[in-house]
Each structure stands twice: as C-alpha cells, then as structure tokens.
C-alpha cells in the first residue's frame, strides 16, 4: 500500500526533478568544471589549470573596480528607489483614491511588459536625437545631454528603467501586506494622537517589516543578475563603464568566447550572492519576529 503511494508520489515529482537535473544541476557542474580548465573554442584540449581563471578574474581591475561597484550600486539604487516608490503607491492605493481600479491597472502595466521591451522603449525615450525626453528638454529650453554616452547619465537611465519596471511589483506586494494588517493598532494610534507620518514610521513600517524584508531580499538577489536592461540600454558602455556582473560574464564567455573565464566569474558571482543573500536574510530575520 505504502509502496504504491510512494511510487505515485515519485511519479508526480519525477518530471520536474528530471528537468531541474538536466537544465540546472548538470549545467552548474559542467560550468563549474569548465572554470577549472582551459576551455575555449580555439583550444579544445580542456586542460586542467586549477584556479588560474579565478586568479585572473579576481585581479581584473575592471571586475573589481567597475563591475562589482556598478552591480552593488545598481542594487542599492534600484531596490531602494523602487521600494520607496512602491510603498508610496501602495499607501495611496490602500487609502483609496479616485478611479481606484483604473489607477491600479495602469500602475501594474510595467509588470506585464517584458524587460527587453521596456528597455528598448527607454533607449528610444532617452535617445539623444529622437528621444522624447530631449525633445521635451529642448522645448523647455534646457540642455539636451547625450544620455547614453556619459557614464553617470547612462547609469541613471539604467536605474530609472529598472525602477520603472519593478516599482509595481513592490507596490503590489506591499499593498497586499497593508491589507492584511489588523486595523485596531491603527485605530489605537489615532486615539493616541499619532499624526500620519508618525503612524507610518511607528506603526505601519514596523508591522510591515516582514513583507518589506522578504521583498528586499528577493529583489536584491534578482537585481544582482540584471542583464537585459543594461545590455539593451548601454551594452555595458560607454567604454565598459556601466558594465554589471551579468554583462561581464556574458562578455567573457560569449563575446570573447572564453567559456572557462566566464564560468569562473559566474561561480565567483554565485558565491558572492550566496554570502550576501544569506547575510541580508539573517539581518532581516532579526527584525522578522516583529509583528503579531
């Protein structure tokens, strides 16, 4: 009886286990193995070279002083801004505004647009000759910068695009969080003469902390892997100055066709994000035991 039950259960999970094994686990092993060998198209011997590629990546000034700082700057800026904006939108929707349903739908639109399309849209929006942003600035009589040709302007456009895409996601989850909070503490606070801002800082945020924590961890880890936006907007340029981690790996592996070096960078990235993610999670977990 139990054997039949067990085999049924195995039968249920087997397909997904197979897919995971074939397309996730096996490639991870192949990739990790590749990172220890000389493995490129022009050198098919796959000679074992130990940590040579790791040494290269970790001493690559571009990786250390441009790619990693860019990646973390993007995480901090994008997650921070979309959290703040998403919170504002969620609070607005929670309080109730005119044309609530319409606004809610419009606000969610960016979520339904693929990052590739959004990025392409933004590239044209910020195009220095044909873009609507510069047209508007010209109409105001202001300067018209070449947005994607300057490092910090370009980086700003990347952050802007990422925030545009992800704000609705924060808004949606935070709104769900807000709706699930008990209303009595808020009523008690109203009787306790707390103003709006004090209610927000002393009641809402502490009670929402678990939701905020989970959102930030998920998004931060996800942001570490950002590829589409940067690739389409700047391609890591001008002069590799906006390159982030995923672009670096992609360039090494598929532009320079040095699979081993790309794999090594990817493994390093995985380790970084594992440590950072666990640390972030532990940090947030300390605040987690808060509400109720």
């Amino acid at each position, binding site marked *: 009886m139990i054997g039949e039950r067990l085999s049924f259960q195995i039968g249920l999970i087997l397909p997904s286990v197979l897919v995971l094994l074939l397309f996730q686990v096996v490639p991870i092993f192949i990739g990790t193995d590749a990172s220890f060998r000389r493995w490129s198209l022009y050198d098919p011997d796959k000679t074992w070279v130990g940590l040579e590629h790791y040494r290269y990546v970790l001493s690559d000034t571009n990786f250390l002083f441009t790619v990693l700082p860019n990646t973390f700057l993007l995480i901090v800026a994008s997650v921070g801004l979309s959290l703040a904006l998403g919170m504002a939108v969620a609070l607005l929707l929670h309080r109730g505004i005119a044309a609530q349903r319409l606004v809610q739908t419009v606000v969610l639109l960016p979520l339904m647009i693929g990052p590739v399309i959004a990025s392409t849209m933004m590239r044209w929006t910020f195009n220095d000759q044909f873009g609507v942003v510069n047209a508007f600035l010209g109409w105001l009589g202001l300067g018209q910068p070449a947005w994607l040709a300057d490092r910090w302007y370009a980086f700003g456009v990347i952050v802007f695009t990422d925030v545009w895409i992800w704000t609705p996601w924060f808004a949606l989850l935070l709104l769900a969080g807000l709706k699930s909070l*008990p209303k*009595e*503490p808020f*009523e*008690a*606070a*109203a*009787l*306790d*003469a*707390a*103003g709006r801002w*004090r209610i927000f800082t*002393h*009641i809402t945020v*502490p*009670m929402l*902390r678990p939701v905020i924590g989970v959102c930030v961890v998920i998004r931060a880890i996800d942001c570490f892997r950002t590829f589409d936006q940067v690739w389409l907007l700047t391609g890591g340029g001008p002069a590799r100055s906006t390159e982030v981690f995923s672009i670096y790996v992609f360039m090494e592996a598929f532009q320079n066709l040095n699979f081993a070096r790309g794999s090594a960078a990817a493994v390093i990235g995985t380790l970084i994000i594992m440590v950072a993610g666990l640390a972030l999670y532990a940090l947030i977990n300390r605040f987690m035991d*808060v*509400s*109720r």
Partner: protein
Amino acid sequence: MAEVVLRDVCKRYGSYNAVDNVNLTIRDKEFLVLVGPSGCGKSTTLRMIAGLEDISDGTIAIGDQTVNDLPPRDRDIAMVFQNYALYQHMTVYDNLAFGLRNRKVSEDIIKTEIDRAVDILGLRDLLKRKPRELSGGQQQRVALGRCIVRNAKVFLFDEPLSNLDAKLRAHMRLELKRLHRRVETTAVYVTHDQVEAMTLGDRVVVMNNSRIEQVGTPWEIYSRPSTRFVASFIGSPAMNFLDGKVKRNGSGYHIHAPGGAFHVSNESARGLVGQDGRDVIVGLRPEHIRLHDSKTDNALHGRVELTEQLGAEQLVEVIAEGARIMVSRVEAERELKPGTPVYLTVEPGQLRYFDQATEQALA
C-alpha cells in the same frame, strides 16, 4: 471629568440603520455599560463616541463640546479594544508612552505617569517586555494602562474581557471595578455579556435592533424590565414567558396560564388595571419559582421533564400543558425524577406582564 451626551444619533450603512435614533446622557464619572446581542449597534455607538465611525445623523457632545467633526485624537478619550490593539513591536513602556509622546509630553512627566499606572495595574516587572511575551490578562492590563496614563476625559471599552478565559474574566471584572473606583473617569463599556453589564455598570443600557430598549441601574433593569426583550436578555437562566389571560375577580385579578391560574391581589398587579379579558405575556424568573410536591393554591401544575445538577443547586425543566418552564435554585439534594408531578408558585409581586402585540411591559 466629563459628561457625554448623544442626541438623536444615527448610523446608516446605505439603507441599513446600524444605530437608530439613540438618545443617551452618560453622567460625569459614571460607569455606563452598553449591552445587547451581537449586531445590536452597541459597538458602533461606542466607535462613534471614539470618532472611529462617522455619525450619520444627530450630535455627540463630550463635556460641553460637540465632537461630531473632531478627529479621534482631539476628543481626549482613551479606548481599550477587544484584542487589546497593543503595538506589538514596542515594549510595554513604549506602548504606554506612545500616546503621551505624540502629545509632546516631556519624558519626565511620561515617566511619572507610567509609574503611577504601573503601580495601579501591577505591571512593574513587565515594562521591558514586548506584548507577545505577555499573557492575555497582562496584555489587557497594558491596554488599560495606556488609558490610565493619558488621563483622558472618557474611557471607552469595547468588549475588553471577551478574549480571556472564564476565570481570568471574572478576575479582571473585579479589577476593572476597583480601577474605576480609583481612577474616577467617565467610562462607557460595551459587552454582550449580561453578567459583566450587571456587575460593572452604575447604569446599564440594553440595546436591540439598533435601538435602546431600556436604560437603568442593574437592579431596575433586572426587576422592572421595560420590554420582553430586556426581560429575556438580562438574567440567567432566562425568564420564562407564558401566554396568559387576565380575568377580573372581585378585589383582584386571575391570570390564566398553562397549567393553572394565579390569583393576583390588586396592589401587586398595578400593570393589570384595565386589562380585564386581555391576552398578556406573563414573565416568571426561574429563580422566583418555588416547586411544591403537593397541590397548592395559586399554582401551575406540570411535570418534571429534565433536571440539571449544578452541585449548589438544580435547574429543573417543567412542562405545563405543553409550555416549558425553567426553574432554578432547587435544592441540590432534592430528588426529582422525570415525570414527577409538581406545582409551581411565584410571589405575585415578582410576576411581570407584557403586551402580546408590542411586548412592552404593562406597569
């Protein structure tokens, strides 16, 4: 410190009247209890006093100020919620201090106030704890403390004891009573529990179907209920109601009821004057009925249906011509087998009469 006056207060949700034309004056330093079944409008009334619900019609005044358009923060009231509504992420001390800090009270004064409240409530050792580390009773005390430190004009209680177990509830009831004697403040207390209403209230307001049925001291409510609803709601076990017919008989009246007839002298039947020949509802409290084994004058005849042994007393259900009559305070050791014939008598002064159509008391 303040009187609360409700004048023609209504609360409507669309076409539904949650509170219908409530007129009520809560006297200074009075402990007033709003009691009624769920959905009767008592909590909504309380929340309108607090400012947590808009008033659809009428006015509410606290002290000599109409508060209809004042936000809760400006009404100088404090409230205890059913689930305590403590700030879970703050320590007990910060919970108590929050309302004062919002009012820009200096930390020195806050400390003094909290010290005072903590001594009254015995919370001294819990100040550094978070609410979730406290028992239900302790959390309730913190919620009370939040009111005490505020020195508010009016205390509002929204079923504060209903989340506690029976034993703790009885204990907290006494504490509340003691507290009110110590911190003399106008208090409005909402409950569905008639025992709480009777024991705590200086006066009790019985509500039903969005309206006030009766206002009075606990004794008035119990001894002279103004409607059949009040009579049935207050008292445990509930009052028995029998269909009766009034017959004039020389110097007094006869009440014909299932299982027999009572003779009621003129003095003890003020309510029946002019009711000759009318059908009425007769109300008998279970605790006022005496049970006799042998035939007695002015008694209803019936048979024992069931007995419930409570140790200190017995509850006996008697069937008299199809009508069920509950009798309480029957000696525990008395043996009453189902089917035993019994005779029920009541002091005439303790009978209540209600109009069959309006269910208003005839008195």
